[in-house]
């Protein structure tokens, strides 16, 4: 262990529901805790800007968002150290975290670690998705949460998933005009989701929420297309319209702002960089880090909690955070084992309740194959290095078996986003071309720095 580096019982990376909950739980057993997050204020993305939000904004964003205020308050009162604006650029197995703060690189050490980096929007590789004027629906929601900004012109929302519907509802409550809601979800999705509806009904609160949203959107007279596919965004230097197939016909809606969304996926940069094992989940169509029941990676003392361990939503994320905090307190002998077992079971039961609706949602809102694995070779897959789908397919033809080889041949994944926006697409393209499972194809080798850091900042550490 390096001398002169501050040591905490628990370091938490990520100040969203999972991270804050882990901190609060660990603090309740007297452990010393520090929470790091790239954002200056707590909340992660789901509770972005919760501490500064006005009552008007909380009203528009809804009760699920407002619930974050209590969590933020409890965290502020729990006595954990909060390092906001800290961009973590390396985590090693010895639980030393290197981060960038105020222009200098610093280190901090933990006896245990919770990785709670949450989720990001799934990439949406369709023609024209890189044009200015095309953003994620989640991005637009963040823009509203953090600055109160709303679209000036009628906006198009396209894709699938609960967030898309939630944003539509929030926009309508804020007085925004929605030009069209273009849903990929169609009859086939409902039929496939039907077997899971029993689980969904057990989570009936969530299910009724969804149907209320749809009702509201329809009642506002928003032009809605369901069962849509084959999106393409057109425009010279910025978005001008979106075309799609609907009821067998090709249709066009003009818009300067197109908000795409097809679900969120775990942010796995940290877990991959630690060389944790991951398995490909065919239901969620993403990589899930392999952990024990409390979220620990092997016997490392490193835990993963929240959406970065698999999409479970805010409430379950908070529970997983508490579970990790509890397990760590147990590992550090801060509570009697019987207490641990009892509380562990209670939290697991809560998690079960909150996640019962997942199989239904994952099936109902499954992103279309052609929106994940481009059919059109001209679609940009790697935005940073401008590598197209056709090029990836060619590399497979030449013999590339996996994404690290395609990276070597064509620079795909070598840009500043470090594979965040192309990794899933590349793995799935290769799997599709080779006719094997994504599990067999694997993922990019993720290396530090986890976030780009300047050479001067690196050189400054004494």
């Amino acid at each position, binding site marked *: 262990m390096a001398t002169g580096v501050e040591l905490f019982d628990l370091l938490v990376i990520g100040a969203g529901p999972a991270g804050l909950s882990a901190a609060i739980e660990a603090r309740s057993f007297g452990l010393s805790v520090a929470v790091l997050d*790239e*954002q*200056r204020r707590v909340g992660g*993305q789901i509770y972005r800007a919760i501490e*500064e939000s*006005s009552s*008007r904004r909380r009203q528009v964003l809804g009760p699920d968002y407002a619930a974050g205020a209590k969590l933020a308050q409890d965290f502020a009162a729990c006595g954990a150290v909060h390092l906001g604006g800290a*961009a973590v650029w390396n985590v090693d197995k010895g639980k030393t975290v290197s981060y960038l703060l105020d222009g200098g690189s610093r280190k901090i050490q933990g006896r245990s670690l919770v990785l709670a980096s949450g989720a*990001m*929007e799934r990439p949406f590789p369709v023609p024209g998705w*890189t*044009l*200015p*004027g*095309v*953003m*994620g629906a*989640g*991005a*637009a929601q*963040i*823009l509203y949460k*953090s*600055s*109160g*900004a*709303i*679209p*000036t*012109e009628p906006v198009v929302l396209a894709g699938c998933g609960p967030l898309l519907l939630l944003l539509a509802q929030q926009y309508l409550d*804020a*007085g*925004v005009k929605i030009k069209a809601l273009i849903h990929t979800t169609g009859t086939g999705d409902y039929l496939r989701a039907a077997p899971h509806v029993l689980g969904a009904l057990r989570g009936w609160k969530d299910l009724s929420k969804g149907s209320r949203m749809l009702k509201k959107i329809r009642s506002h007279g928003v032009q809605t297309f369901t069962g849509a596919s084959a999106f393409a965004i057109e425009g010279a*230097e*910025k978005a001008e319209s979106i075309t799609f197939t609907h009821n067998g016909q090709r249709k066009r809606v003009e818009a*300067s*702002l197109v908000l795409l969304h097809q679900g969120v996926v775990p*942010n796995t940069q940290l877990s991959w960089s630690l060389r944790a094992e991951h398995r490909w989940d065919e239901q969620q169509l993403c990589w899930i880090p392999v952990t024990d029941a409390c979220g620990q990676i092997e016997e490392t003392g490193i835990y993963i909690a929240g959406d970065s361990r698999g999409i479970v939503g805010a409430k379950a994320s908070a529970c997983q955070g508490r579970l990790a905090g509890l397990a760590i307190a147990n590992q550090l002998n801060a509570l009697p084992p019987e207490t641990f077992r009892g509380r562990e079971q209670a939290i697991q039961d809560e998690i079960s309740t909150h996640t019962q609706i997942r199989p239904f949602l994952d099936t109902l809102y499954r992103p279309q194959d052609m929106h994940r694995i481009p059919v059109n070779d001209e679609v940009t897959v790697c*935005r*940073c*290095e*401008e590598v197209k789908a056709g090029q990836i397919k060619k590399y497979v033809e030449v013999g590339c078996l996996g994404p690290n080889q395609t990276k070597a041949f064509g620079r795909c994944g070598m*840009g*500043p*986003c470090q594979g*965040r*926006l192309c990794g899933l697409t590349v793995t799935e393209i290769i799997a599709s071309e080779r006719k094997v499972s994504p599990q067999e194809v694997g993922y990019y080798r993720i290396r530090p720095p986890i*976030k*780009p850091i300047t050479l*001067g900042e690196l050189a400054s550490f004494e």
Partner: protein
Amino acid sequence: MHTETQETKTSLFLPEVGTEGKKVRIYFDGQPLDVPDDVSVASALLMSGVRTFRLTPISGSARAPYCMMGVCFECLVEIDGRPSRQSCLTQVRDGMVVQHQEGASALNLQSAES
């Protein structure tokens, strides 16, 4: 629904009514912009009508923010002389000078001292 001025006529986004607060002045490609003092540079630029934040190094294609949470790296601009800054992760500051990023980062050979 929102306040509108001459220069913001083509903004894709504007702050909703009721969010007016303190303002600061920043500059984008030489143009002065008066923006809320507590937002990110990316938000401020979007609300001021900026459509193109950068041109890509390879093909010179126009790009603008996509994720607003620091994972896509499309919102890169030059801030106070430092290239390739993620504007969605940087808070505005009075007097800040922002330039769109043209291709690869440029190095200032004159600044021998870091």
